[in-house]
């Protein structure tokens, strides 16, 4: 090979170095946000004390608060943020639509429906009961949507939207007829992390962790799937398999996140957009950046939700909605109505 045939300086290696640098920067920011988030609240813990509580536990009052309350909540926020963000990145990649978000698969509506019905039947009394109902509802809704709409992404989205409308209508009717159910549902539906850290969370967190790793591994196949189904298939990627695995991941990620934190909108829509520019068309990097940015966003929003109101806590979903509205407009303006 002659010198003239060599790629211009700054080829693959430089691009990779930049991406890795950005990822490391994101992780540092995530750690900083987590420390601040853990420290802030009704009782303030200074950042240095937070770090000490995590790595050199002495059992002081501050340490107990950090260990037993704040750190689990931060972990929960990070996991939910990552799950929603990666779920959004996956559905947007799969549907080739920058405005898609996991809710269009009917997962959120399924969870809401199940919580409503569970409350009406007296099954979803405590928070644990609501969690179980939400998990069951999101899984059943997703299975139904996947069964009806399998093999055709468009049909799938239509099925999800239709199911969302039907379940939403029935659930609304039940709630309007029954004030007690309305009250129970209201607490779940605001989308908050407050108090949720005290619930049994091992299973949802483990499910989210496994799915995040799987999403990273799936990135290469999504990369070739983005070149069109013909190209993907002749490159040896199992097209149908990749699509189905992606849908399962989206379902579990958003189902688990919704089940533990209630419906939190917009994170799945916004974060992939922020991650898209540095990822520059690479699906594995889109997943990695979403995995870092999602937790940052949700931790920051959760922290803001705790301190913005002098009288007490605000549901985190309200903070993300305030962020999400303008972002949605920005997205539509950037991509044009054609993206809808």
């Amino acid at each position: 090979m002659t010198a003239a045939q060599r790629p211009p300086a700054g080829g693959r290696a430089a691009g990779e170095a930049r991406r890795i640098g950005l990822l490391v920067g994101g992780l540092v920011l995530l750690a900083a946000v987590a420390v601040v988030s853990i420290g802030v609240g009704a009782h303030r813990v200074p950042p240095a004390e937070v770090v000490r509580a995590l790595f050199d536990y002495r059992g002081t009052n501050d340490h107990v608060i950090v260990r037993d309350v704040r750190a689990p909540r931060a972990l929960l926020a990070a996991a939910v943020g990552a799950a929603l963000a990666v779920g959004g990145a996956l559905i947007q990649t799969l549907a080739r639509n920058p405005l898609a978000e996991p809710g269009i698969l009917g997962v959120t509506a399924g969870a809401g429906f199940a919580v409503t019905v569970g409350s009406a039947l007296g099954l979803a009394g405590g928070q644990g009961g609501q969690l179980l109902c939400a998990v069951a509802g999101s899984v059943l809704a997703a299975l139904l949507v996947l069964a009806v709409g399998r093999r055709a992404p468009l049909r799938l989205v239509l099925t999800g939207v239709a199911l969302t409308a039907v379940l939403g209508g029935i659930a609304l009717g039940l709630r309007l007829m029954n004030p007690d159910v309305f009250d129970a549902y209201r607490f779940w539906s605001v989308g908050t992390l407050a108090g949720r850290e005290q619930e049994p969370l091992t299973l949802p967190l483990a499910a989210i962790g496994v799915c995040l790793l799987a999403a990273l591994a799936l990135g290469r196949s999504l990369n070739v799937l983005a070149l069109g189904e013909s190209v993907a298939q002749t490159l040896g990627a199992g097209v149908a398999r990749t699509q189905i695995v992606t849908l399962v991941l989206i379902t579990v990620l958003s189902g688990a996140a919704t089940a533990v934190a209630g419906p939190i909108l917009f994170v799945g829509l916004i974060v992939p957009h922020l991650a898209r520019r540095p990822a520059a068309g690479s699906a594995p990097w889109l997943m990695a950046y979403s995995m870092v940015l999602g937790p940052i966003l949700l931790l920051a929003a959760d922290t803001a939700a705790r301190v913005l109101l002098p009288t007490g806590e605000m549901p985190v979903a309200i903070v993300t909605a305030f962020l999400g509205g303008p972002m949605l407009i920005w997205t539509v303006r950037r991509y044009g109505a054609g993206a809808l």
Partner: protein
Amino acid sequence: MSARLSARDITLRYGDRVVATRLSLDIPDGAFTAVVGPNACGKSTLLRSLVRLLRPAEGRVELDGREVGSYPSKELARQVGFLPQDPLAPEDVKVRQLVARGRYPHQSLLKLWSERDEDAVTGAMAAAGVTELADRPVQELSGGQRQRVWIAMALAQETPYLLLDEPTSFLDITHQYQLLCLLAELRDQGRTVIAVLHDINQACRFADHLVAMRDGRVVAEGRPADIVDAALIKDVFDLPSVIVPDPVTATPMVVPTLQGE
């Protein structure tokens, strides 16, 4: 003439619509095969069946005597490369990254990116003449440049077979000829090239082996100089013509006799 890739009595159909019935074809190794025929004669469908995008309802497509359907996906993808008419270039992707995706069948979860992948991508970009474009976003390129980038991606796949569905369709005449010269070079380097082409004269000039199709049947196949005459063009295209030697290459050149009054 040996042929590793062949179709044996294949019937092709989409749902109830039969495109081809009991079609047989041998693809000569190391040659440039051009498939020509009128619109909707089944030439693209035939190509898709050769790369397993469409499974024959009957009959079999074989590579080395083994049905292509029985190959694991990645193993087949290391043998046969395919470029469809309208591949999708995702937003923001740079040329080098797109070409690198041609390495997919050579990689796995445990064997991500190797020196060999790097060399294949660099070599493919050089062969397709897109080295200078490596850091440009694909969507900013002109039609001719983009088509060469896609060819580079297929070359990075390092397959003995390269199949292309109307690769010249969206190109101006200069880029059409440049692309066909590139395909001829690839043939000279030992690849087997199979392309669906629209222009019969280009096919006659560049192809070693011509396959003329109509209504899902192979009407004639062979060296262009051996099979192209006015009767064949009438049979295949319903077009009255005279055949003259191409003044540059002496290959057959079809000159239609229809003229406006």
